[in-house]
Each structure stands twice: as C-alpha cells, then as structure tokens.
C-alpha cells in the first residue's frame, strides 16, 4: 500500500455513470468588504446512489458553503460560484432559480444544524410538512394530511396526529430534528444534504438521529451527504469521506481506510484529537496552531504551518490530490509518511 508518488495517475477511479451527484472543481468566493474569501477552493467529489458520503472538517473550512452552493442557497449578492455540479445530466450551477426551486425539497432536500431555528416558530408542524407537499406534489388536502402522519411515523414521532397540531416550541431538540427530517423527506428526495444534523443535540439523541438517518437511507434508498466536524459521527455513518481543510479537500478515502491508514497529516491530527476510551488516550492531542486566514492565502500547502512533516517544497508546490492508494487520495507531498510517522 505504498503511495505511487507525485506523478501518480490522478483520474477518478470510480465509474462516472454510477454517480448520482458529482461535483467538479467547485469554487465559492465571498466578497467581504474589499477582501475576497475563498471559502471553497476547487472541491470535487461524487456520490453514488444510496451512499452516505461524509465531509468532515473544522468550523469555517467550507463544508456548509459547499453544501449550500450545490442547490444555490448561498446569498446572491457578494458571492460567486464556479465549477460544475452534475445531477440528472444537468449542471445545477447553471440552472435558473425557477428550475432550482423545482429540485429543492423535491429531489434534493436539506436538513440543518440547529432544529431550534430552522423551523418557523409561528407555524404548526402540520402546516410546515404539508406546505412542502403542496409545493411539489399534486396531493389534495386530505392526502397531504395522511402523508404528514405517515412521515411523522417514519421519523419515529409518537402520536403523530396530535403532535402535528403542535408548534415547534412544544417539541424537544431531538424531536424537532425529526420534524425537520420529516419535512425534508416529504417529497421523497433522491439526495439528502445533511448539514451537521446532530451537532446541536446531546449524545444519546445524536445517536438516535444518526441511526434514524441510516434506517431511512436503507428504507428509502436515497443518498446522503453528511457534513460534520465530528469524525466519530462520520465514521459511524459513512462509506466514503472527504476531509476538508481551509476550503480544499485534503484527503478522500473509504472511511475504514481513512481511519486505519490516514495519508494526510491533518487527518492524522484529527484522529489523534478524538477522545477515546483506552488508557493511552487520557489526554487529547490537539493540532498546534490555527487554520490560515482565508483572506491571505499563500501558495503551497495550507496546512504547512501546522504540519509536523513540513518540508521546504511544501510551501511552494501547486497542491493537488495525489493518489496514495486505489480510491484513496491525499493533498500531501509526503503522504506515504503521513500515516506511519504519526498515528
């Protein structure tokens, strides 16, 4: 399993026909005052039908921006997006607002981090679920009501008929996340974009929601893009994962391989800063330093200043994803050393 070196073949190993949604060289820049922030800088990935794909990284690394850019949910002013997001033979980034609206909520749904603020406080839960159905389906009022009850059952809410009549504030955090899921699933989407869906929940509820997501994937056969800062969550859920750092994917691999033999020093750092149960991991090992300022990015590897393996050429090379093993790519010149030297 040694790396193939700098000049290794870098084409995508997987069959593009099997891909439901593929992202090529996505770039998102924000204009903040006079400065430009490259929030997402050349991100590419692809999701298969029925797959749970993970994106992991710390706050501000561009995870959420990536997800929102996919379905055009970033603010219109001061933001520019480029690249290609292919879904159903179309480039979503070139679709007009009208066509995008037809996709959103119907074929590509989204659940968000904080179920407290993503539900409308003044509308009953039934209204919020049924409204999604009204927008995208031809069901009549009675059918929508039935479907809402069915959805509440699907996401595991007891007494659905009664709870549908309640307002969001009458639900607990975990229950609200279930409601958000019910809304997102209302029209039977093919892709569910989950933006830190469990971050605002406590650990036991988090576990319930994750199991629910997995069950829903199995039952409904949809694909899920799961974004999280928690490698533990990603490891529990995903088949393949991309690690993001400072707006770029720094490593992508099947999850088992990523955990067993990480090939980027940042991933190694993430893994060793995870809390564990064994005696050796009494203390968490932090990654020294802080991510680079997104307004003053220098050429070369963006992790160089924090990297224990840094060489002089790290600061000058045009970084790209190198094939470290089949299906395993790393944006590190010394990827063959990264796992063994540190883990």
């Amino acid at each position, binding site marked *: 399993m040694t790396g193939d070196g700098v000049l290794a073949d870098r084409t995508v190993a997987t069959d593009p026909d099997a891909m439901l949604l593929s992202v090529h060289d996505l770039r998102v820049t924000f204009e903040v005052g006079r400065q430009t922030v490259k929030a997402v800088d050349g991100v590419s990935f692809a999701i298969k039908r029925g797959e749970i794909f993970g994106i992991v990284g710390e706050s501000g690394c561009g995870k959420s921006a990536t997800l929102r850019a996919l*379905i055009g*949910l970033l603010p219109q002013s001061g933001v520019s997006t480029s690249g290609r997001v292919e879904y159903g033979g179309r480039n979503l980034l070139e679709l007009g607002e009208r066509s*995008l*609206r*037809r*996709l*959103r*909520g*119907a074929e590509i*749904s*989204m659940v*968000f981090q*904080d179920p407290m*603020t*993503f*539900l*409308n*406080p*003044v*509308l009953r839960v039934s209204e919020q679920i049924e*409204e*999604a159905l009204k*927008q*995208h389906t031809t069901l009549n009022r009675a059918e929508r009501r039935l479907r809402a009850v069915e959805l509440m059952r699907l996401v595991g809410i007891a007494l659905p008929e009664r709870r549908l009549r309640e*307002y969001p*504030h009458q639900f607990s955090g975990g229950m609200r996340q279930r409601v*958000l899921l019910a*809304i*997102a699933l209302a029209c039977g989407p093919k892709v569910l974009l989950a933006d830190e869906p469990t971050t605002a929940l406590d650990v036991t509820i988090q576990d319930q929601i994750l199991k629910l997501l997995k069950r829903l994937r199995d039952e409904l056969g949809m694909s899920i893009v799961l974004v999280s800062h928690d490698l533990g969550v990603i490891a529990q859920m995903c088949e393949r994962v991309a690690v993001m750092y400072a707006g770029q994917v720094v490593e992508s691999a099947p999850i088992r391989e990523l955990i067993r033999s990480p090939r980027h020093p940042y991933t190694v750092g993430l893994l060793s800063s995870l809390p564990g149960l064994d005696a050796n991991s009494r203390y968490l090992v932090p990654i020294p330093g802080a991510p680079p300022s997104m307004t003053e990015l220098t050429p070369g590897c963006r992790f160089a200043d924090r990297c224990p393996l840094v060489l002089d050429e790290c600061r000058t090379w045009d970084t790209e994803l190198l094939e470290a093993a089949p299906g395993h790519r790393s944006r590190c010149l010394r990827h063959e050393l990264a796992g063994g030297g540190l883990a």
Partner: protein
Amino acid sequence: MSSLPPDTAVRTPVPIGPPRTAYSWVRWRGRLPFIVGLTIVLITFLAAVFAPVLTPYDPNSQDILNALAPPGTPGHLLGTDQFGRDVLTRLLYAARIDILIAVGATSFCLVTGSMLGLVSGFFGGRVDAILMRIVDIVFAFPFIVLVLTIIAILGPGLRNMFISIWLVGWVPYARIVRGEVLVAKRQEYVLAARALGFNRRRVMLGHLLPNVLAPAIVFSMLDAVNNVGLGAALGFLGLGVQDPQAEWGKMISDAQNFLATTWWLPTIPGLAIVFFGLGLSLIGDGLADRLRPE
C-alpha cells in the same frame, strides 16, 4: 430489604405541580387587562349596533321645549343639547361613526403599510431605498398637519377624512414591519423554506409575514386610539363629519359654547372617547403579551 418502605407507598399518587389556586390567579390576573379591554370595545360595539333598540329617539329629532336639559331628566337620561336632541341617542349613534373610523382607517393602514414594509425589507436595494425615502418624507411632517393639508385640498367630509388618513397612516406600519423583516429574513427558517424550493412569494407571505406582524398589530391598537382622537379632532374642527351627523368630537365642539353653564354636554362625549380609547389600549397591551412568539 425489610427496612425499605413497602412498594405501595411509592406508588401512592402524589399531587404534583404548583398550587392550583395561586397558579390560576396569576394567569387570570395576567389576562385581566385584555379581558377588560375586550369587554369595553364589545360594549361600545353592541351599543352602536343596537342604538335604535336602546333609545326611542332619532339622533336628529328635536325636543325644543326641553333644550339643554341636565342629565337625569325624565325621558332624557343624559339630558339634551342646545337643539333639544337627546344626548344619549346621539352618543350611541356617534359610536357608529367613531368605530368606523377606528376600524376602517386603521385596518387599511395596517394592511397597506405592512405589505409595503414587507416588500421593502425583503427585496432591499432600490425598492427599499425609494419606499423608505417616501416614509421619511411623510414622517418629516407632523401627522395632523399633513392630514389637515390633504383635507384642505380634498374638502371636508367623512370620505375625504378617510382618504387623508389612508394616505398618511400607512407610514409607521411600513417602517415597523420593514425593521422586523430585516431581522427575520436572516433567520434560518427562511433559508430552510428556500431549501424546500418555495418561491419568494410563499416565503414572504407564508413564512415571514406571520413572524413580523405581531408588532404591527399591537401598534394598530394604539393607532386606532389615535385615529378615534384624530376623527374627533377633525370633527371638532368641522373638517370631518358634517352636520347634523353625530360624532363624539363633533358633539364636543357643538357644546363648547355652553361649557360654563352645561359642562356635562362636552364632558359626556369626551368620556366616551376616553372609554373606547382605553378599551383599545388595553387590548393592544394584552396582544403585545400574547403575540410574543415562543
């Protein structure tokens, strides 16, 4: 084991929760102003509707022999005015006009002002700039001066009074709602609504409006009080309701010449204005407490 109390002891139901009487008293006391306000407005409304049943007189029929009779005169419970018209009758019929002003003038302003504020705040940019400059200009003039100016152009009368209030009165609603929208549109449920593929109109009317309307509704109650006052003031100045129609402000102005001798004549409609205004204010207060989103 044997030292433990028997299982049944644990299972005996224990009353849980705050003491019932104290709790319900607090709730009731909290709602009292709202209930009182509602009662006052309801009484006024019913009195206006059932005016022909409550008094045998026509508001304009004269009992010349009994002119300026004091309250308590047999057949004229609140006395008569200088033309011998029954004060109670006129008071009740006047309530119709004043309620019409409170509801008609205010609801129109509430609706148009809120809509313009919603559009202004939601779209921002040029639309917002133009609308808000208009609002600034209207705000720069004293409200009553502007209303008087418009009536001066259109001519006195009830209809023109409505038109002039409509033209000026939407402004505060637009400003209130716009401010609320600026905050609410950054809320995440708006993003969530967009993520469901809802169009702008649905996001605006279905999701934003219910969240931003509460302050405007509360303000509309105060505004209704002001409009009743304004209607009375215009009636007093002779620019609103015209003779011989009864209106509270008009009744006061008609009676002003007799202030020294028959002080009750202007006082009675004055009290009616205070009574109705108090009711509206209390409702506004109560709504302010209730409409706060949880």
